[in-house]
């Protein structure tokens, strides 16, 4: 990767976000990303409020997908229950914000919801990883947790299932969940429809950049090493149990953040967020987009949910068939996912035209730095 002096500052700015653990470490990639974010930002202006409303839900799903790509793609933990943290955070926000009216409630709700989903993931992760649960058993256990929540929340229709003014509502769900807001009392910022879209988009971009920095840090190398061979990594002096615990907890926090943005957009949440269909979706997004690509998973979440939505509003029942077929196709044809496959093709195409000097400082820091 050669950098001329004119974009030296930009290269420095990019540096923490680049490394062999992420695809896309070139100027062209960052320019493409900036264009994509700008197009997403322009969407409410071009397509109107309704597009912002639907788009915000897709972006909240993208956060959920990223949380799985982070723990599965980078640390080898296939959680089939990321929706548990997503949904628990949504309910937690509703309970706090309905009971504490005004902006104070929305602010406290946001903090409490992310804290609850993080703590939930930490407790579950602690018992799983320190209890020696590994591999496919983690997958089964996390799915069971989501399904238990689905069953439990489904039977909360009775009037006795209320926390203060917040009725859990069983399969009818919890309605009247306030909008997102930051402030105390009536002083602060209430996030409206379009504002919510931009907050969600900003959160997705910030989370993406934050995770890129994390996976390219020393901790990121330890995560990848743990994914590749846990025993070997432990014999290099890494506490792999703690690494998995920490990664799983961070994943729970991100999924929780997505859950809050999802619930506040809809002003509603019901137990279907914990259901088997919802639980499978993040796995599909990460598989199709490429679990080792955060951005690939985001793209897959947005694209798949868009098609799913179009199929649903057209009145057809083909949405799940489409998603299932897509998953089977990708697993058979490109098991690593679309983004890594695309990256390989681009690299092959560029290689003859763009030979990388072996001894540049960037090349000595990480290999294959240019895609």
């Amino acid at each position, binding site marked *: 990767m050669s950098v001329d002096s004119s974009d030296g500052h930009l290269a420095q700015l990019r540096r923490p976000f680049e490394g*062999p653990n992420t695809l896309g470490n070139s100027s062209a990639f960052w320019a493409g990303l900036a264009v994509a974010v700008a197009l997403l930002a322009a969407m409410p202006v071009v397509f109107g409020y309704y597009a912002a409303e639907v788009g915000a839900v897709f972006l909240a799903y993208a956060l959920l997908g990223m949380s799985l790509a982070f723990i599965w793609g980078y640390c080898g933990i296939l959680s089939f229950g990321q929706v548990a943290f997503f949904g628990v955070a949504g309910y937690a926000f509703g309970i706090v914000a309905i009971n504490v009216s005004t902006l104070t409630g929305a602010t406290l709700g946001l903090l409490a919801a992310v804290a609850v989903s993080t703590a939930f993931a930490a407790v579950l992760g602690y018992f799983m990883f320190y209890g020696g649960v590994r591999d496919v058993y983690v997958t089964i256990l996390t799915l069971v947790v989501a399904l238990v929540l689905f069953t439990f929340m489904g039977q909360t229709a009775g009037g006795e299932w209320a926390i203060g003014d917040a009725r859990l509502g069983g399969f009818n769900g919890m309605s009247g969940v306030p909008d997102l807001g930051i402030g105390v009392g009536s002083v602060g910022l209430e996030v409206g429809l379009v504002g919510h879209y931009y907050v969600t988009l900003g959160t997705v971009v910030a989370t993406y950049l934050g995770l890129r920095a994390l996976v390219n840090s020393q901790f990121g*190398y330890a995560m*990848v*090493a743990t994914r590749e061979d846990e025993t*070997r990594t432990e014999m290099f002096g*890494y506490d792999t149990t703690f690494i998995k615990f920490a990664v799983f907890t961070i994943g729970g926090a991100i999924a929780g953040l997505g859950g809050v943005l999802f619930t506040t957009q809809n002003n509603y949440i019901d137990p279907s967020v914990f259901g088997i269909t919802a639980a499978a979706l993040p796995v599909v997004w990460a598989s199709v987009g490429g679990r080792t690509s955060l951005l690939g998973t985001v793209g897959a979440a947005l694209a798949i949910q868009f098609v799913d939505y179009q199929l649903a509003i057209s009145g057809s029942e083909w949405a799940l068939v489409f998603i299932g077929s897509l998953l089977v196709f990708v697993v058979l044809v490109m098991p690593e996912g679309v983004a890594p496959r695309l990256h390989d093709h681009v690299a092959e195409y560029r290689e003859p035209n763009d030979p990388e000097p072996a001894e540049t400082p960037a090349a000595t820091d990480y290999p294959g730095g240019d895609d």
Partner: protein
Amino acid sequence: MAVSDPTIKTKPAVDETGRKSSRVLQTRDLRKEFGGLTATDDVDFALEEGELRCLIGPNGAGKSTFLNLLTGQLEPTAGSIYYDGHDITAMPSHERVERGISMKFQVPSIYEGLTVAQNLRVPLQQVVDDDFAVRTREILERFDLLAERETTASDLSHGQQQRLEIGMAMALEPKLLLLDEPVAGLSVEETAEIADLLCEIAADDGVALIVIEHDIDFVESIADRVTVLDQGTIFREGSIEEIKADPEVKRIYLGEDH
């Protein structure tokens, strides 16, 4: 101590803390049982700083189990392990590594999906905060892998993979290096290269080594002393000449033609 022969040379016991000026490792009555099977049977073993010790014995003698007890991959049923004067018996693996115990596994245990440089980065970042490029280059030069720097580890030859793993183990700058069959499957030339490398590590870096090996010619070319394990116990201990001349060792392990 359930040793089978009174001629075994045992080291003097360590003091309360297990510390001896030049003793890097000592086990006391170390025992590991798997159900009804005793894989390691009250083993007393000692190793000095910079010593290169080979561990030999027939299949099932408990060699790998013994090494796994030292690394913490297995928990002993009874007994103690002292390393550098400290009791590490209950210490988790990763903490033992932080204190300077490093391991090369029997099957080349490298990150096959990562490049050679990325492989080295994993142990290196445990001991240096920066300058990965400089240290990586030094290690690659020493282990003759500089040209393979950006090669995916799975594409390396078996001999290169063995060298890479030893390089990764040495990147941790250990005091004690444990190697489980480091020349298994290597050609005569590659075996000789590894022999030179291990002797150099012991002599120049002052690292103590325990090497499990079946190839008695290889053992002869590197070992200061040899320990023979049989049925979980230390059967003999001595110089390679003493071991080779011992008729009982010949009978259980070397075969009459040696």
